[in-house]
């Protein structure tokens, strides 16, 4: 518990791009892992036959389903782009360029978010 309190205190004290990226990465990572359960559970409707499966999938073809998919796209894109940034920093020693890499990741994220509006929401 003490460690959890320290973690939040650390976030309040060190408000930097790196710290925000660290927290975004953890929150999106946990969210995607939780979504994996939902994904497997939805697909498991196939065990009850074609109609049950199509009915389960059709719940994602509604307005709220499209919004859910768009949010999922944003969460995955944020985690994926920041993951590439972290891997590049770790494997090629780019620590000094981490802020610049964050800017590049943010730009690509905004492009994906824009395309996502056209392909997922509309």
């Amino acid at each position, binding site marked *: 518990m003490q*460690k*959890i309190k320290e*973690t939040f205190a650390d976030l309040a004290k060190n408000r930097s791009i790196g710290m925000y990226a660290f927290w975004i990465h*953890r929150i999106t*990572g*946990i969210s*995607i*892992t939780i979504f*994996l*359960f939902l994904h*497997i559970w939805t*697909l*498991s409707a*196939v*065990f009850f036959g*074609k109609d049950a*499966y*199509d009915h389960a*999938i059709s719940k*994602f*073809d509604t307005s709220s389903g499209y919004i859910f*998919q768009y949010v999922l*796209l944003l969460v*995955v894109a944020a985690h*994926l782009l920041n*993951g*590439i940034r972290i*891997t590049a920093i*770790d*494997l090629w020693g780019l620590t000094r360029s981490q802020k610049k890499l964050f800017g590049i990741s943010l730009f690509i994220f905004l492009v994906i978010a824009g*395309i*996502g509006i056209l*392909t*997922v929401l509309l």
Partner: protein
Amino acid sequence: MSIEKRGFWPWYLQRITALLLVAGMSVHFFLFHFSPNRYVSRYYDEIIDRFCSPGWIAFHACLLSLVIFHGLNGIWGIFVDFNFNKRSKYIVNLTLWFIGTVLFGAGIYILIWFATKNGNM
């Protein structure tokens, strides 16, 4: 997820699976969320017609194992960062292995179910 606390292999495999997942998830998202056929491609008949070849089944089996390992190894990394005692670590480790095995088993069973419905395998 510091390398000192977690050891080399969990850290290294997290990076390698991440790079493989970038490619795998891009294909998955394009097919089911971006491509012109994205709406029909999610439904039963289309999956049976297009995605039940040995290649697609192998692709999705690999994607499933990568995403489960990456997700649960990531959660393990977060847990280790909080410096819990040895007993808690043992219980969490065991729980994550159990969850991973169940998820992988369920996912593979779904893939086998689809694969055996179209007679391609």
